[in-house]
């Protein structure tokens, strides 16, 4: 139940960000300065924390998506869905921890 709620919330968040990300990238067609100015905002520490949040949403949505696929297509998927939820949690920590260290070091060390 809660993984289903989190899947929906992270999905909507990622859709909204993708829309914004297409618009900010489109600035390369306006001028290098316009694009670079917006990229400076992405390097701001507060926004940097937001990016870590977005990547967390991507990793959760991706791993929980694999779990949904397993529940749908694997004959024992429904039986092991709870165990697979914990696998999602472990996978999330394994992938997000190194990313967070690397990204936040980049964001805060300049």
């Amino acid at each position, binding site marked *: 139940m809660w993984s289903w709620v989190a899947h929906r919330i992270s999905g*909507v968040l990622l*859709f909204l960000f993708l829309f914004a990300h297409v618009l900010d990238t*489109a600035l*390369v067609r306006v001028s*290098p300065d316009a694009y670079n100015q917006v990229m400076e905002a992405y*390097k701001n520490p507060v926004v940097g924390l937001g990016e870590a949040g977005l990547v967390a949403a*991507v990793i959760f949505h991706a791993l929980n*998506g694999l779990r949904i696929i397993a529940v749908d297509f694997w004959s024992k998927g429904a039986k092991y869905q709870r165990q697979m939820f914990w696998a999602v949690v472990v996978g999330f920590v394994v992938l997000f921890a190194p990313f967070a260290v690397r*990204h936040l070091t980049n964001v805060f060390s300049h």
Partner: protein
Amino acid sequence: MSATTGESTNYHAGPDAVAVKKSRYRRVAKPRGNFELWSWVFMRATGVLLLVLIFGHLFVNLMLGEGIHAIDFGFVAGKWASPFWQVWDMLMLWFGMLHGFNGVRTIVNDYTEKDGTRWVLKGLLVLATVFSIVLGTLVIFTFDPCIDPSSTLSVCTR
């Protein structure tokens, strides 16, 4: 009393049966094709592809080199000089937008109670999706690294 429709009598049915064709108690929906089945398949297929595309995108752009500090106009020019990254980004854009469109469509269908609200939200959703796909694809393939005539990028000073 026999079950009649006014047109014909159904001699095979019992006394409570209603005529199949004209009754308003008929509960068999018209066939609607397999759209929802294909959208379900589409979500799973594009989901797996997006996992690879987006994890690759995040690793190359945020983990390698200086991470986010390397990203500027020159960085984009470097990547889109290669058709590999142009196609990568195009696929990510199309699959991401359509996967997101389908997900948000499901959510709108689930939570809207009034038809009007539902159609307005879906209209905005279609608009945002088509706009992003068209704009993003044009940006990727009409990108000009030398849009600024005084550019010092190596491709422009040659």
